[in-house]
């Protein structure tokens, strides 16, 4: 958690997100910095997951969803017509709230995505490397053919992280990745996030304020304005947001007096 913010890897410019005519997110400007962990916090319905999903065009799957504004990934708007959303999702992977491994072996969970993306190297090496990177290798190395669904919740979530890493993304989006996990499994994921941040940029949506405070470098606080659209109230270093936020709404939310 340093003052050095690195270079922006994602630049959000005047982003609004609509579900049909309803504006769910309004006029967001935000820079996500390379090799940092950025937390998005806010009360239910403030649009934080909607914003997260817009970063790899997951909202494309929702009928009626549309955006205004720009989301630049390395200076290229990911919503430009010449951009392949599949390529966007390869570069910007996602881990979900509930662990969702395929009902296949541990090995196949890693290998499948890599194969689909045309990986032609040594698959055994790739599986080992990604499981090591996801801090799971030591626990599963002797049972790679075991069904992934037999793993514990925390292990399944780390497997999902490994699966996301296997296609070599630059950014990992995490949508409340620990909400289904016990405290120890949660801390393991947080430690893993810190390790991964040396090589990846991580954006996490969390309801758990202590998690945002513990695990992130930057924090964005969202809330709803009077017409129920999500707006970003404050964005800054996590250390600043959780010790001396500039905005009263942020203070009220993080101290548990609102939301």
């Amino acid at each position, binding site marked *: 958690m340093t003052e050095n913010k690195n270079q922006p890897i994602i630049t959000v410019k005047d982003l609004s997100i609509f579900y049909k005519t309803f504006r769910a997110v309004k006029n967001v400007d935000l820079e996500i910095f390379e090799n940092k962990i950025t937390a998005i916090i806010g009360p239910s319905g403030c649009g934080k997951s909607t914003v997260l999903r817009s970063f790899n065009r997951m909202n494309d799957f929702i009928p009626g969803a549309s955006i205004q504004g720009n989301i630049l990934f390395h200076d290229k708007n990911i919503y430009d017509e010449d951009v392949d959303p599949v390529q966007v999702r390869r570069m910007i992977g996602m881990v979900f709230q509930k662990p969702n491994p395929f009902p296949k072996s541990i090995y196949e969970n890693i290998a499948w995505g890599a194969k689909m993306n045309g990986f032609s190297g040594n698959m055994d090496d790739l599986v080992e490397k990604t499981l090591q990177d996801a801090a799971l290798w030591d626990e599963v190395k002797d049972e790679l053919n075991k069904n992934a669904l037999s793993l514990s919740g925390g292990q399944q979530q780390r497997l999902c992280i490994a699966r996301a890493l296997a296609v070599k993304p630059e950014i990992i989006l995490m949508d409340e990745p620990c909400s289904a996990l016990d405290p120890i499994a949660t801390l393991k994921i947080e430690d893993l996030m810190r390790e991964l941040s040396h090589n990846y940029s991580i954006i996490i949506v969390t309801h758990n304020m202590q998690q945002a405070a513990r695990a992130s470098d930057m924090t964005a606080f969202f809330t709803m304005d009077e017409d129920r659209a999500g707006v970003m109230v404050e964005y800054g270093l996590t250390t600043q947001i*959780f*010790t*001396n936020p500039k905005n009263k709404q942020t*203070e009220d939310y*993080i101290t*548990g007096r609102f939301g």
Partner: protein
Amino acid sequence: MPRDTLDRQINNIKDEVLILGNMIEQATLLSVDTLKNRDIRAAHELIEDDQLINDKRFAIENAVLILIATQQPIAHDLRILTAILEVSTELERMGDYAKGICKITIKMGESDIPIPIRDLVKMAELAVTMLHKGLSAFVNENLHLAQSIPLEDDNVDALYHKVYRHVVEVITANPATFDEAHLLLWVAHNLERLADRVTNICERTVFIATGEMMEMDSTDDEDQED
């Protein structure tokens, strides 16, 4: 309000800080009274009562630690609680100053007081007034008041220098008074330091209100720390 419990408990601890502050105010004024009245018995009693001040300080610290451990306060709430830890330490040290003055009363015994006692009484009154206002600013998070109180320290410093000059004059004129005059300079020193510590309390009040650590007394000399 979802944090009623936390708010109520913080207010309870603030009340305890005010009670501790009141104990210090009383102890300070009474300690100078013991000197003025040459009341060695009262001085002994005040020294014993310092244990009550220490106990109160530890009780406040314990209450703060429990609140941090059980309520996970952050931001403004956390600043209040860490400031209370700091302020309770300041108050406890002020209690030691009063105890030190009582020890001087005992050491002086029946000896003559070779300088005007009224200056020491006045110093105690000024310092205690600063403390009273400083704690009021602290518990009410009154930024304006907290910023104005350190200016009053100049009056206490001026009296300290007056006492100092008196002591030097008395010792120069009659070196046989050295022991007593020297002890009285320590009384003035303790009262001057008490006022300096009020400035520290005001700095914590500014910290609670703004999140900024600010030195408010540029004349506060580290060499004088004791």
